[in-house]
């Protein structure tokens, strides 16, 4: 009773939505058993197109066009000759092939204890994730950023000139006012001074407006360039580099970090010159009136001017750390939004929110001390400016008492003294703010300086498109990792032939395909296409010769049409509709509200896995390259679509060199040659028939897969 009560508190409903379609035969068998245990006594709904997943169900519902059209047991449905038997026929036939390899369930390599290879770069590889704001010091920062500005010398000069004029006008208001008072005191006419005052006053606002416009126009143009450069650089580094990075962080760099560089471009370069020029002029003028006055003012001016250079370490560190924290915030947010379905289904919204809040708090905890430093600085400058003015008044008082200065000049000198602080304190203020810019620029340059590993070759264009491939002593391991993915691989595919790669997951099959695309380069040995080494091709040329249908299909948030046209933007309408037809996509297109113009949503969210895969295949048809790589290209398709696609692919394969990576028998059986990979080595090779006659790994894989289908157990029951 107690036990039963406890049991009922389990999650009572289980849904498996194509849970095993991406799992290879060997694992499928084991996981199916685990799932069988899990399903026991639990209400279970299995959505699948694979026989092995549904054969043991109590009842099978067959859907067509949004309703249930058939229902019953496997055998009853098979007899009916309806949709179900059409969908499952092929797989049942395959399962019956089991007779061929009967009696070899126990294996020597393939068992639960098989040590898999790590698929991608995990060992010894620094997982950096967020790009660090480190490296670049101030001098380098200025050199780097100035390099960007140099093409804009003219505009920079303009900004500088208007900056000087603007400050002069501002000071002019004070000077003319002081002159009026002087005239009053001396009892002379002040009409000229008053006219000057009104003129300068009206000008000051306009000059500020123009300066700000010119400076920002240059700055934001430069930012636009920088944003594009971030993408260009990523384009060169991808996809190897992206494995180590978080896309939210990268987006943060292209948006927020670049935005922060605006401080330097618009508010620093020209104002620095203004802030040197104006105080110099003021000090010079003061010296001509009274040496002592200048001397009284100088210490305050120097203190204000040099203050941004002092106590830098802490602010710079805070600024840089804050940029990293902001990057992490973006990365976490992207991950959450794109994985929302999982979060909601597992009720992790609260926990995810807590982590997000902690990241926000961390960011704030870096910002508040930063602002405290900044504000302290600003207030100090204010006080020093006031005291500077006061010092001039005091000195003036002393000088007038001993008669060496006309008191009437005092207001003018005080106003001049205080206005010398204006550009200096502006720049001092910016100087602190620049800690943010430093942090941001460090991140932009960390990316910019990432070495490009895969570069264009000399580009010996070979007009021969027959595309034979050869691997000679190829060894490969992911950068920074000791374990090798491929070891001493030797094989050749003749032009026009089909090669199938099989092996347990993690055996290096996908890595091999990526080496051909030159997403990576091998450590040792050489790979050549048409007798020319891959490294000698121009990257665009090489990739234009290969059509890759990868395991995961990425769809852009565009229309279905644009997503297919990625393969060939200038394709004709005829070519497009042909590709759609061949990839069994016509039905999908018809079911879409706007047909080919339907927007597929973020990452193709509005399409199912099978539909996305068909888009990938349509792309391959459209690309029409002489060399074809199919990496589990049809694993998400139901039998009927798969059949259609296979027929089309067979057509496509003629006259084309093809590599098929698959774990499903139906896909590899007809290959001219099969290579069995295990732990990065080629352990067997031959045709399907030849390999079945050996007692090697292939035979075991096939045996596993067939018994995994469950048909045998089913029949025995």
């Amino acid at each position: 009773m107690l036990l039963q009560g406890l049991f009922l508190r389990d999650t009572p409903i289980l849904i498996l939505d194509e849970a095993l379609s991406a799992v290879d035969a060997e694992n499928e068998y084991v996981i199916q058993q685990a799932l069988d245990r899990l399903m026991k006594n639990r209400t279970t709904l299995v959505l699948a197109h694979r026989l092995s997943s549904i054969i043991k169900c109590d009842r099978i519902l067959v859907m067509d066009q949004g309703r249930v059209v058939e229902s019953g047991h496997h055998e009853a449905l098979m007899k009916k000759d309806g949709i179900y038997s059409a969908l499952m026929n092929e797989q049942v036939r395959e399962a019956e092939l089991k007779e061929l390899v009967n009696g070899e369930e126990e294996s020597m390599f393939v068992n639960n204890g098989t040590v898999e290879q790590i698929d991608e770069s995990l060992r010894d590889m620094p997982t950096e994730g967020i790009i660090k704001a480190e490296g670049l010091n101030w001098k380098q920062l200025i050199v780097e950023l100035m390099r960007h500005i140099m093409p804009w010398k003219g505009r920079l000069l303009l900004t500088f000139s208007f900056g000087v004029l603007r400050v002069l006008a501002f000071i002019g208001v004070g000077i003319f006012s002081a002159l009026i008072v002087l005239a009053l005191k001396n009892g002379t006419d002040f009409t000229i001074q008053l006219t000057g005052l009104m003129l300068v006053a009206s000008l000051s606002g306009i000059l500020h407006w123009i300066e700000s416009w010119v400076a920002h126009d240059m700055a934001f143009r430069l930012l636009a360039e920088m944003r594009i450069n971030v993408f260009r650089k990523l384009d060169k580094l991808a996809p190897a580099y992206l494995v180590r990075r978080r896309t939210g962080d990268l987006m943060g760099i292209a948006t927020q970090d670049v935005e922060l560089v605006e401080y330097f471009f618009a508010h620093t370069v020209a104002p620095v010159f203004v802030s040197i020029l104006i105080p110099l002029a003021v000090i010079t003028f003061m010296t001509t009136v009274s040496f002592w006055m200048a001397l009284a003012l100088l210490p305050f001016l120097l203190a204000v001017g040099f203050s941004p250079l002092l106590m830098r370490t802490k602010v710079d560190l805070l600024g840089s750390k804050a940029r990293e924290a902001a990057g992490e915030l973006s990365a976490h947010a992207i991950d959450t939004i794109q994985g929302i379905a999982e979060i909601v289904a597992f009720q992790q919204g609260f926990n995810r929110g807590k982590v997000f809040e902690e990241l926000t708090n961390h960011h704030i905890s870096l910002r508040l001390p930063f602002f405290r430093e900044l504000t302290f600085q600003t207030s100090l400058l204010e006080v020093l400016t006031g005291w500077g003015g006061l010092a001039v008044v005091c000195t003036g008082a002393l000088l007038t008492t001993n008669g060496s200065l006309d008191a009437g000049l005092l207001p003018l000198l005080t106003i001049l003294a205080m206005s010398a602080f204006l550009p200096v304190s502006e720049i001092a203020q910016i100087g602190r703010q620049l800690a943010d810019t430093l942090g941001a620029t460090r991140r932009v340059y960390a990316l910019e300086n990432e070495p490009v590993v895969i570069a264009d070759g000399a580009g010996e264009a070979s007009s021969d498109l027959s595309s034979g491939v050869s691997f000679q002593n190829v060894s490969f391991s992911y950068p920074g990792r000791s374990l090798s993915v491929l070891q001493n691989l030797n094989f050749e595919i003749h032009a026009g032939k089909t090669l199938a790669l099989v092996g347990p997951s993690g055996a290096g099959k996908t890595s091999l395909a990526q080496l051909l695309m030159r997403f990576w380069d091998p450590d040792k040995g050489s790979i050549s296409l048409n007798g020319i080494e891959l490294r000698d091709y121009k990257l665009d040329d090489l990739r234009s010769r290969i059509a890759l249908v990868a395991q995961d299909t990425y769809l852009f948030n565009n229309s279905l049409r644009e997503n297919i046209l990625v393969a060939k933007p200038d394709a004709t309408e005829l070519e497009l509709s042909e590709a759609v037809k061949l990839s069994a996509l016509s039905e999908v297109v018809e079911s879409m509200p706007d047909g080919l113009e339907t927007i597929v949503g973020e990452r193709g969210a509005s399409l199912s896995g099978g539909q996305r895969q068909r888009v990938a295949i349509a792309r391959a048809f459209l690309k029409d390259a002489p060399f074809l790589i199919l990496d589990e290209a049809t694993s998400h398709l139901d039998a009927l679509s798969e059949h259609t696609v296979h027929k089309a692919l067979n057509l496509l394969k003629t006259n084309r060199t093809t590599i098929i990576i698959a774990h499903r028998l139906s896909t590899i059986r007809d290959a001219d040659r099969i290579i069995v990979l295990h732990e990065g080595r080629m352990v067997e090779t031959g045709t399907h028939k030849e390999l079945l006659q050996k007692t090697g790994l292939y035979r075991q894989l096939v045996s596993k897969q067939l018994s995994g289908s469950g048909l045998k157990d089913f029949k025995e029951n």
Partner: protein
Amino acid sequence: MQFETRLWSFTQGVRGRIAISVLIGMIAAALGVIRLALLGWLIGLIFLGQSVDELVMPIIFAALVMLIRGIFEHWRTMTAHETSAIVQKQLRRRLFDKIVSLGPGYTGRQRSGELVLTLVDGIEQLETYFGEYLPQLFISALTPLMIFAFVAFLDFPVALILLVAAFVALAAPSAWHKFDTKRSLERQQAYAAFASDFLDGIQGLATLKSFGQSGSRTELLKKRSFELFRSTMWVLATNSLSRGITDTSIAVGAAAGLGYGAYRTMAGEMELTTLLIILMMGVEIFRPLRDLRTVLHQGMVGLSAAQGVYKILDAQPVVLEEHSGNSTTRLEPSIDFDSVSFSYPEHSHIVHKCLNFNISKGERVGIVGSSGCGKSSIVKLLLRFHDPGQGSISIGGKDLRNITLDQLRREISVVHQDTFLFHGTIEENIRMGNPEASETEITDAARNANIHEFVTTLPDRYKTIIGEKGIKLSGGQRQRIAIARAVLKRYANFNFR
């Protein structure tokens, strides 16, 4: 001036702080004027020929006022930053929770780049709006009166001139407030478009490269980036124009005040010392207005960021939570689809037409059909990511609409066809199934999913970081981690109660 009642409603809990900011700001502004007036007064005393000895006390006094003004200014700014931090925390969490509660039915139709930009950058912009812009707005609104009160004490006609100038400086920019808001909104959209296309571009970069199409994406981003530049310049154009008007009216106002004062002094209607004070105060008397002008930009960016925030807050969840359901009683695990018709929002294509089936307790039912026939939509309906257009779905005889979302999702474990793995360790990803799980339970779940052996070969075992979306694992490995996650969820409620 830009003041939005809707944004004001976000200030709940910090209104007291904003009031304090305004108070401190007013005192700081007054001190700022007084310290300069003191300088003018000092010069006046020198004009009158007072000796240096007699000036010592006034000089020390002036120096002290300057120091206190500095302290107040520091205090004001820090209060502003702290207020901002509080608002930022509250608002960001609120927005985050809202996005989660909107769920996949909503986010699937949005662009993630845009959502993240609002969540991170947008909130940061609003932070300045609340911390600096809003207090400054109140201070500025009170400034003309303060100026008038202070200067009227010195000389009434000059005070009138300054009052007029202050009003013009304050009111002029609001003339194109509407225009400003429109431009800000355009900029926000341009920024979001760039961010979204950039993110989409890098996430699909491998695909683009395989087809040699990264060049055309670069062109698109170039266009987006230029649009962002152009819309930014438009915002700046209107923005700096209103700045120009404020600046000019301040400068002209100060000049006119002084000029008129000069005539009055000449006519003997005003003391020269008073004129000196007005001279030294100069434009400083308008300081709060100039300060407002500098945060005006942030106010504007904040307003445009607010548009993004509203968009999320106003979004209607695709499904409505029903609170009446009693979440403690267990449901019988039977499923019933009764004449269910369904199509996705904004899509005319009908996914389910009068779908009928039921699954009794403990039964195992398979559903097959060609892809796109509506299999996966069944899962989405069961988890209530969407509601059916017609008909009803029930578990244990109870309509899903009468069960709380929390309870519903506690009853069901799902292994999806596209599993989403999060950036983090393998353990964290499996643990999503049950945050309270012990280490043994996690390894048990992993064994069940046939992934344990693999994990033990990794250098950091369960602590290995798997990269974004599990990019460092193969498709099969990812799927097995997802299965382990679902297996673990089986234990979840067992442990909880």
